[in-house]
């Protein structure tokens, strides 16, 4: 525990680290703004035409609300299509948007959103019917396809949406990649000199003589995991709060498929759970990067070269990501929305495994492998033997 605290102080709790992190968060906030402008629905922003009507109708979809909005839409439609209607230029407080024609459009949008929620179950019924057809078709021909269809049938059962809400905060969050990029940069900055610095100032010999090679190794790794977890959590909070400032943070308990782009999300989970899963996967990716950086650091005596090689390694992995199938590249976890748009399976010994489950498992295996290699490099047998001798001498 002492070593862990010491490593924490030495590597993470330093002014340059905090300054860099603050600067990158500021850049990320700028990027959030750009993302909202580019990909967000401007209508739901505080000054957007949908804002007021949304506040009036959001929440659970009830018969009363449906009737009320339908009546309002008809009323607005009648006003706009009447022959004496002229487009006014000054807003009227009686209307949500200030204008009858504005309310005509926005009420229609509310109806459409409610329609999506109500009719969602029909889409799922159609999908299940198609799956049953697929099962019947593949029966006796292709066992894997049958299993896959059965899984789909199982995954897409008993789904419904009961709430009308705006989910732009989450849709933007799931698509946002820059946070992962920041985490990667931070891990590289903090851990590239970790072992190298030790070697450069001959600390490694002292550690070896004290018989703390393994302890230091584990403390460093523990420190890296803690850092990755902390940074992922902070970035997740920043993203959600930043997007949430514009669109609001609500309906976290609603299912992930309430978001339009995730109609066919493979898992029947709430948005909150999806955010946790996303954060976990980003954490895994950051840990994977951290393991590689520590491995490089353990081989180099010069911090500059350690930085350079870490940059090259990450660059090469990103380059490789383009040519590898997405199911086998941990870098697919940079953008999480891919996992929620469709049910993608990986054929593991004839059994379909969801990509959202397969990839984290693969990444964990890769992390363990890199960790073992790093252990072999940073704690060679000679050093461990010396550790043993030191202990026996102490006894």
């Amino acid at each position, binding site marked *: 525990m002492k070593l862990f605290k010491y490593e924490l102080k030495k590597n993470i709790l330093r002014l340059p680290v905090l300054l860099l992190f603050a600067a990158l968060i500021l850049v990320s906030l700028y990027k959030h703004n*750009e993302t909202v402008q580019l990909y967000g629905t401007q209508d739901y922003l505080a000054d957007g035409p949908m804002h007021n009507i949304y506040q009036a109708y959001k929440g659970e979809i009830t018969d009363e609300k449906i009737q009320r909005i339908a009546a309002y839409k008809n009323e607005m439609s009648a006003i706009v299509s009447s022959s004496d209607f002229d*487009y006014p230029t000054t807003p009227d407080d009686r209307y949500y948007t200030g204008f009858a024609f504005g309310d005509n459009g926005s009420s229609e949008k509310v109806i459409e959103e409610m329609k999506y929620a109500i009719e969602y179950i029909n889409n799922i019924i159609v999908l299940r019917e198609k799956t049953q057809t697929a099962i019947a078709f593949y029966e006796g021909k292709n066992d894997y396809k049958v299993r896959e269809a059965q899984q789909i049938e199982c995954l897409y059962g008993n789904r419904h949406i009961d709430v009308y809400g705006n989910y732009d905060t989450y849709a933007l969050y799931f698509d946002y990649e820059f946070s992962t990029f920041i985490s990667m940069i931070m891990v590289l900055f903090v851990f590239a000199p970790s072992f190298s610095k030790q070697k450069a100032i001959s600390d490694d010999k002292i550690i070896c003589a004290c018989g703390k090679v393994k302890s230091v190794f584990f403390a460093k790794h523990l420190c890296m995991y803690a850092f990755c977890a902390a940074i992922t959590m902070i970035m997740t909070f920043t993203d959600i709060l930043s997007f949430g400032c514009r669109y609001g943070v609500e309906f976290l308990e609603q299912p992930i498929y309430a978001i339009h782009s995730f109609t066919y999300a493979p898992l029947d989970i709430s948005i909150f759970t999806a955010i946790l899963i996303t954060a976990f996967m980003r954490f895994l990716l950051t840990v994977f990067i951290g393991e590689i950086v520590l491995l490089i650091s353990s081989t180099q005596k*010069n911090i500059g070269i350690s930085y*350079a090689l870490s940059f090259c390694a990450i660059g090469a992995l990103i380059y490789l990501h383009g040519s590898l199938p997405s199911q086998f590249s941990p870098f697919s976890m940079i953008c999480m929305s891919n996992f929620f748009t469709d049910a993608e399976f990986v054929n593991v010994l004839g059994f379909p495994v969801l990509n959202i489950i397969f990839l984290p498992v693969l990444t964990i295996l890769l992390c363990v492998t890199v960790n073992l290699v790093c252990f072999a490099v940073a704690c060679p047998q000679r050093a461990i033997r010396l550790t043993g001798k030191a202990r026996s001498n102490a006894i």
Partner: protein
Amino acid sequence: MKIFVYEMKKILIKQYAIIILAAVVIVRLLSSLPLAKQTYGFDSATEREKYFEIISPFIGAVTEEKADRADELENQLKTASQQYEKLIDQRLEHKISDIEYYEQMKLYEPTLNIKKQIEKTVEQVRQAQERQCDILPVSYIPIICEASADYLFVLAICLICSLSIITEYTSKTRYILRTTPAGQSRSMAAKTAVLLLSVAVASVLLSAVEGYCLSKQLPFEYWAYSARGIEIMTNCTAELSIGGLFIQTQLIKLVGSIFTASVAILISELFKSYAASVFSLVTVQIVVDYVGNRSNLSYLLPTGAMRGYGYFYGDVTPTAENNYMQFTGVPLWYTAVLMCGLLIFSAAACAGTILSCNNRLKRKRKKIHKAALLSTMCIITSLLLSSCSVANNRYDPEDTMKLVGGSYTLIGEYNIPFTNELKTSKYKIVLETNQSSGGFSISLIDLASKEKLDIPQSYFSDETFIHCFITEHYILVEYITKDGAEAMRYYDLNDFSTQTIAQNTQGVEKNLFGLTFKDSESIFTTSSLVFTDDRDFFFVTDSGLYKVGVNKNASLIIDEPVTEGLIYDAHSIYFISEKDSIKRYDLSTGILSEIVSGEKIIPRSLWGDYDYIYYTNENGEQKLAK
């Protein structure tokens, strides 16, 4: 000199700078080689050969003869396609036998087989005519236009600079140097010279690799041709040849490399930290490129120099209908100022670093303390960055449209169709499109007061924007409504009143400036609109040609169906009448006269320039003096 040679040996060999830089050059060479192949945009070698065969006589400046030849080719293709369709119809209707069909097809097959090549050639000739540039056998964007920073090179520069400076600091050599008169500063001067020289040589080598790849894509004989001949460089504001463009871009990259090297030297000397020199510089380059890519911020900052070609993309890009223009590039004056700034910064950084190394043993010690050096460099940097930000926030009336994210900023400038006269209004019109929903909204910015005036009725959250016609007096927006109908909306810029003037919903009554229509056809599309230089505009319906005047009321001025091709030349409107004749409507006198009759005129073939009207009949394209 001795110390220079010694430092050179030390940096290049002992500190592996030569290996690092050679690796960068080799990686660039290996990654560029697959690109160094001209494909002319065709899949197979045969297709490419055919294309080259066709384009060869056209290469170079556009002449009337070449334009005529291109027209001939186009007509030949058009005739072959028509005959081919006719033959298919005849075969389907059993008017000809299969044998006759195949025999007659043999006549048109050779032309149809090279359809793609002919179309490409004709397109290039037309574009070259329009843009007043040379015709080149380039049908895709060559390597010359790749505007991405070589991060590996940036990394290598930072690494070799910091290694050579910091290694000495951490070793015992510094004690020896400190006790030698001017030893430290001389050593630093030699180091700086060696580092800058090696970086410059590496940059030149990388340029040579790029030049080699370009020569494979575009043989040297075309390097003297205008750079505007290359698709992406069409709007290059400088009069540059391809060779000139290549050299200037490489010079910018060279300046960028020297700047990066001097910053790395300075930071290494000041902070003695790899995190500050290697990590921070590479990270800044990557983050700026990533974040600032869309709004050209990356070109406006000093890091942009490592990207090169983007500085010559040009200021304006005419969009689909030539109705508005798009700002995509960095002004040339800005590029020149930035380059000078970078060179001054590099010189100041190197001089400051060398002078700061003067030690106490030198008699006339210049008192340059690290703190003073740091603050001076901070001031120079902030000046450089503030000039960048000033340039970024500038308003240049010549940039008629600025692409910022998904927002189109239009200014009240428009080309009068046909005559291409540019008109300027007093408003900057901001048309913001939402990329996710396709919706759009319009607001105006008063150029005098800089006030933003929202047009409240211009929120279209679900509609898809198609076109926007802007004149001094009104904006006309064509869009697709949620139910898929095409609609138009009119915004009067004098009183900001607005009205939907047409919506082609089937079977529904439509109101158009007081006229009521009920038909299943589109009332009009942008292709049937004509704008005059006063407040009038004209449009075509099935009933005839209508004029909309200041009072926004439409009046029928030509009571006969107008088939196709409405063109306008500031004095008259020309159109193809249903009776296979071309008619002219004089805008000043209101007299309608028939200028061509008794010929079978091909629909949509009417077009014109300042002096002539062109149309195509059975005998090919005809030219008619106005």
